[in-house]
């Protein structure tokens, strides 16, 4: 069934982004809330259908609504509304436009119906993210933004290469594609780049913490989850992803131990949580794919909530390092409560949304007889609680007083946004059957509320808490930053590019000099002559020479004719 492109949920975002520069401050605020509302109305109106546009000899399927696309689009749209409220205090034009573009591109990716349309939105997601990072407007943000850009353009280029190769073979369908030929692998590489699968992950922890507190809240939701959607759509059951996901889930945990920057700590846990989703895609069973989808949905809201509450702390105190925070439980008690809701959700505490979604992937690993995978994911759950549930709140709100004071109150708009996100985390955790599970596209049922699941979770969490308590002295932040895999290529690439440029310039100069010497005799005599007789004679003489040659040529031609 086909439908009209005029109901495309991306359109409200484009219109709002276009109007934002000419609207006032209040107008921009309302636009960034109106766009999601209209987009949601469009999404709910649309039947399961596709809509396309013929251009440049290709049928661009810009819109496809089906079960899988709907869940992601719904989460993105609702989240963009909440983040829009959170960013109420952002008065400048640029960040608003970038944020609207980011949300729109994210929604576009999950609604794209062919590979070229996917690529279209994919690239705009990169551009919007780049500017969102740059609006952090510090030396760190500039450099990280640039690295982000190059990395994502590289991923997108590899992906485009794969898409074009497939196109030459005759198909740009954005459907399950067996990872057997080179084009599929290229596309897969492009997708896992955006999913931050190690070793292609460094852009995330590098860039996300450097945006503004508002910017990070937008960044955290879209790129990786859009990539998870793309993987779930195109590459379910690819064995490599099972292991990549499980390693990814553990990888972020190790780094989070060492991290001092609260937003970077959360960024490493994005990598860890997306690991569950990637592993779910790799398992490829209906339960695993439902788990991936459900966990992506949960993740968007609890990670948003965590980033928002971390942002609130930074907004209020002007500090974002664990070694500079502490003892804020009094003045920022509501922020603490809201952060703990996010932390309980991400850690899988019963009756919060992580409990009902993460466990689907873990169970799917067990049902698929993947013992090491289940074990790795369980250990990663421990790490999640250790850092986001214990270390982060403990050293931010309790621990020792490092001089952090509330310099300005957390605005009501931030609280409203966090409360909305918290409600979603809690409600979908308590009644998943009527909410989250009802949206899931694949044919598999799952009941998270079994006695053993409760016990398993509580034991895991409490065991972790005990370990944390014993080791808490060791776990405080240290005033260090952590080398990530990007130290291997950051400087060498810059040196290589710089060196090559210098070499080619020098070569060019040498060639010009040598050529100059070689023709020095005649040319310099000519120059000397022109210096004596005025430079413009050169043009005249050249004309004469050309004309003479032309006449000579004409005579030759005429004789032959």
């Amino acid at each position, binding site marked *: 069934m086909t439908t009209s492109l005029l109901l495309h949920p991306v359109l409200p975002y484009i219109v709002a982004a276009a109007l934002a520069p000419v609207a006032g401050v209040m107008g921009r605020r309302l636009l960034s809330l109106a766009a999601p509302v209209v987009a949601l109305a469009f999404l709910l109106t649309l039947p399961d259908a596709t809509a396309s546009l013929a251009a440049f000899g290709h049928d661009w399927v810009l819109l496809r609504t089906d079960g899988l696309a709907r869940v992601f689009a719904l989460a993105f749209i609702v989240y963009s509304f909440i983040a829009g409220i959170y960013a109420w205090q952002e008065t400048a034009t640029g960040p608003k436009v970038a944020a609207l573009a980011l949300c729109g591109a994210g929604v576009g990716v999950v609604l794209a119906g062919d590979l070229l349309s996917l690529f279209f939105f994919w690239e705009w997601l990169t551009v919007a993210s780049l500017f969102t990072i740059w609006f952090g407007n510090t030396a760190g943000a500039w450099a990280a933004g640039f690295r982000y850009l190059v990395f994502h353009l590289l991923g997108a280029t590899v992906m485009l290469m794969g898409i074009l190769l497939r196109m030459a073979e005759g198909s740009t369908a954005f459907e399950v594609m067996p990872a057997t030929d080179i084009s599929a692998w290229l596309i897969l590489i492009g997708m896992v780049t955006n999913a931050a699968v190690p070793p292609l992950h460094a852009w995330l922890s590098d860039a996300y913490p450097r945006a503004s507190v508002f910017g990070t809240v937008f960044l955290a939701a879209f790129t990786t989850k859009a990539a998870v959607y793309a993987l779930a759509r195109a590459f379910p059951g690819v064995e490599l992803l099972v292991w990549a996901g499980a390693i990814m889930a553990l990888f972020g*945990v190790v780094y989070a131990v060492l991290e001092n920057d609260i937003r970077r700590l959360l960024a490493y846990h994005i990598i860890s949580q997306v690991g569950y989703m990637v592993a779910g895609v790799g398992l490829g069973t209906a339960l695993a794919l439902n788990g991936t989808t459900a966990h992506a949905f949960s993740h968007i809201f609890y990670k948003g909530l965590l980033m928002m509450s971390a942002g609130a702390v930074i907004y209020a105190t002007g500090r974002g390092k664990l070694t500079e925070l502490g003892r804020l439980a009094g003045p920022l008690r509501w922020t603490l409560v809201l952060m703990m809701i996010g932390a309980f959700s991400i850690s899988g505490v019963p009756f919060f949304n992580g409990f009902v979604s993460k466990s689907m992937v873990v169970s799917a690993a067990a049902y698929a007889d993947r013992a090491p995978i289940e074990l790795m994911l369980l250990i990663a759950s*421990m790490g999640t609680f250790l850092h986001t549930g214990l270390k982060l709140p403990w050293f931010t709100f309790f621990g020792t007083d490092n001089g952090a004071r509330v310099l300005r109150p957390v605005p009501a708009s931030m609280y409203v946004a966090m409360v909305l996100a918290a409600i979603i985390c809690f409600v979908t955790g308590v009644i998943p059957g009527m909410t989250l599970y009802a949206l899931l596209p694949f044919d598999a049922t799952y009941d998270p509320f079994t006695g053993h699941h409760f016990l*398993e*979770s509580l*034991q*895991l969490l*409490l065991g972790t808490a*005990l*370990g944390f308590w014993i*080791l808490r002295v060791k776990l405080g932040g240290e005033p260090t930053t952590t080398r990530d895999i990007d130290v291997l290529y950051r400087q060498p690439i810059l040196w290589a590019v710089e060196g090559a440029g210098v070499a080619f310039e020098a070569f060019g100069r040498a060639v010009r000099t040598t050529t100059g010497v070689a023709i020095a005799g005649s040319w310099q005599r000519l120059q000397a002559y022109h210096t004596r007789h005025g430079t413009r004679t050169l043009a005249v003489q050249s004309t004469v020479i050309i004309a003479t040659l032309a006449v000579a040529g004409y005579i030759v031609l005429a004789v032959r004719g």
Partner: protein
Amino acid sequence: MKDRVAIIMAVILAALVAVEWLWVPHYAPKFPWHHMPGYAALIGLLACIFVVLLSKALGAWLLQRPESDDD
């Protein structure tokens, strides 16, 4: 001085393990540890200690450097 918090946590943990052992075994045991009551508590505690020590060692050896203006 006794660490009262640690003791309370350990007691609750033991109670949870006991409940699992006596009344609520794994609903669909697949792997060896599913048959062992309290495996989750063990993973939580041991993995926590292991991961922290491992990360700290890695950090000291390779990964950590002083904060710079760039950050």
